[in-house]
């Protein structure tokens, strides 16, 4: 049983990988960006775990900047993905412009809150 489950897991992973390889490069870039943002957030949480949460506003600001930009990137990915029928009428350039604008606003707020 264990062996079949592990082999099932391996088969699952292999199929995921092959399916993923088929995704367009643009989406892969966005995925990479999301991974980068989340990793940065995790590192900040580890740091906070070590030294404590003073000053809390800086910690929140750092975390939320990473998480916020990741969320915006996910939204971009949804809107740009051609297989997504909902956003057929939205041009990817418009989605990108929204992404840039929202990021700029987010980072303004983050910088203000950073202290």
């Amino acid at each position, binding site marked *: 049983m264990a062996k079949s489950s592990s082999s099932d897991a391996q088969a699952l992973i292999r199929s995921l990988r092959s399916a993923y390889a088929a995704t367009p490069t643009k989406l892969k870039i966005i995925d990479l960006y999301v991974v*980068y943002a989340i990793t940065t957030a995790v*590192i900040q949480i580890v740091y906070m775990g070590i030294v404590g949460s003073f000053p809390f506003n800086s910690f929140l600001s750092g975390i939320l900047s990473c998480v916020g930009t990741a969320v915006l990137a996910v939204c971009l990915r949804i809107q740009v993905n051609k297989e997504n029928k909902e956003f057929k009428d939205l041009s990817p350039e418009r989605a990108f412009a929204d992404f840039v604008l929202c990021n700029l606003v987010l980072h303004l707020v983050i910088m*203000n809150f950073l202290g």
Partner: protein
Amino acid sequence: MAPDHGSFGLGALICALMLICPAASIRPISDAHRSAALELFVPVDGLFPSLEETYHALRTFLILGVGETSEINRATCPVVLEKLKSPSSSPKGFYDALRVNSILGCQIGSETLEDVASQLRDLIKGADSLMDFYYSVIGLLHVKGQGVSAVLSDAQGVFHSIKALSQSDGRWRFDSNNAESSTHAAGIALEALAGVVSLADGEVDQSKIGIVKHDIVKLFDSIKSYDDGTLYFHEKHIDGSEYEGPLATTASVVRGVASFAAVVSGKLNIPGDKIFGIAKFLLTIGVPGISKDFFNQIDSLSYIENNRISIPLILSLPSTVLSLTTKDQLKVEVTTVFGSAAPPLTVNLVQTSTSEVKNTPTVENQELQFDQENNIHYLDIVPLKIDIGKYTLKFEISLHDPENLNIYATGGRMQYLVFLTGYVKVDNPQIGVLDTDGESSASLVKLDFSKLDKVSLVANHLQKMRLSFQLVTPLGHTFKPHQVYIKLRHEGRVEHIFQLESSARQYKIQLDFLALLEQIYYLSGRYEIELAIGDAAMENSFLHILGHIDLTLPDPPEKVSRPPPQSVDRYSRFGPKQEILHIFRTPEKRPPKELSFTFLGFTLLPLGGFLIGLLTLGVNLKGFPSSSLPALSSILFHAGIAATLLLYGLFWLKFDLFTTLKLLGLLGVFLVFTGHRTLSYLASTSTKTKTN
């Protein structure tokens, strides 16, 4: 005890009600007034704020004989001339300009004056309110005073019109519509009527003048008085906006009555005492601090000085404190209100009275001698054998020439408060310690104040300390001063004050330490003894340290009160205060720097990972537009984003939100343009490739 206090209080009340309060000495107008006038009326470049104030200043300077008017003349004459030549001047304008001119004497052509005179005559014909009549008539009077002929043709009619505004109680109304009468208006009306009489070309009906004289007498019936005998006029109805105080009202009435008395024949039936009371009122004001009040006082006093009814003679005392030691003389001055010489007269000291010592004889009917050179009446008080104390002196003036009684008012009997001071001797002072049974354990020690020896006494709580002495005035009588105290001070800190009792002959105190134990907080030790004797009539009031007494007292029981905390030095509260130690929140523990920098490095690692990942994916810049304009906008777009991120960095480091938002606004507009350009180009190229 209580009934004594009650009867004493009642007695004092009755005395206060029955006695007329003796007056503080009033002084005639003196150099103090002259210097105050120069300080109050100060022109700016020769000009005063208005013609009315100019007149106040000039008239005051003229009466007091002070002030330099050449600069005022130079600056004000053009204003006066302009006012007189102006066709639209009101009666008040003419009045102000003409009365200033009567003092300054500006060069005004006779044609201008005649023109003004005819305008004033027209104004009088058409006048219906009291103030219009007043300004026009007085203005015309001033024109006449400057040499231009000014005659009122219908003097009877004008007199009648002004008189029509009078009321039955002697007051006047300001115009026929206003039902309220005013004392101030009465003064103005009388001055106007006097002006009409002087301007008339014929005789004014004597019966009418008689009625006005009668009105004046009625007006004086409404005079008010203060307790000290001063008389003044006051308004019955106090209207908020036009309220004139007693000084202005009295001054107005004085001017009116004096002017009227000067132009009519025959005497006015006003007793000289009333004029005297008004003069007293004006003088007790002293030196007013407001220029209008000053003018009113000096102007009305100048009318009183030379009035035809009766001229008051003021009796004043240059000094109200006389010393027996230096053998002072009682000096009295009798002058008019402005300090000019009085006619020949004698001053009589009718009575001296004191409320304190009963057995000294009061002086009666002493005639004061007259010093011709200094114009002072004086009296030697040493031969009178009056003892020291506070006295009320009553004076009476008797004129040598009986005819002068019609001209001058002497004011009847006048009271003044005077202090007689002298040197008080302390006789037979004795201090000592007595045993419980009242017998002296040691003999009483005689003190000698002149030698300033200090006594040393020792006592315990069962003994008593006794101090006694007699106080003798220069004339040998027993003296009871206002303050006789003994003070015991324990080691320079805690003080106790005791009052000495006085018997018929001497002052004494017996301090029973057994009874005083609780009062002195059971504190044993050395007590310094001080004696304080003081009185207004004593020239040698003193505070002597007699010596010290060492007290041995038993230990205090538990419930005894502690001595009160000693007062700190008066000025210590201005010194530095105690340092305040603030308690701050302990700062949070911060991590070591190296750890923080390490993690900073760690945070940058994912960025590196991202870039490596991008390279792995085979990211290229092929999509970058090649043609110039789109390329430029792309570059600018990316540059704009980089600039925004740089702005955010600066915002964190040093900018504030307002600057950042301003710059962000500019950058945002830029970004919108370039971004739109770039993205629309990209969109168009991608649709082209798609369709292709």
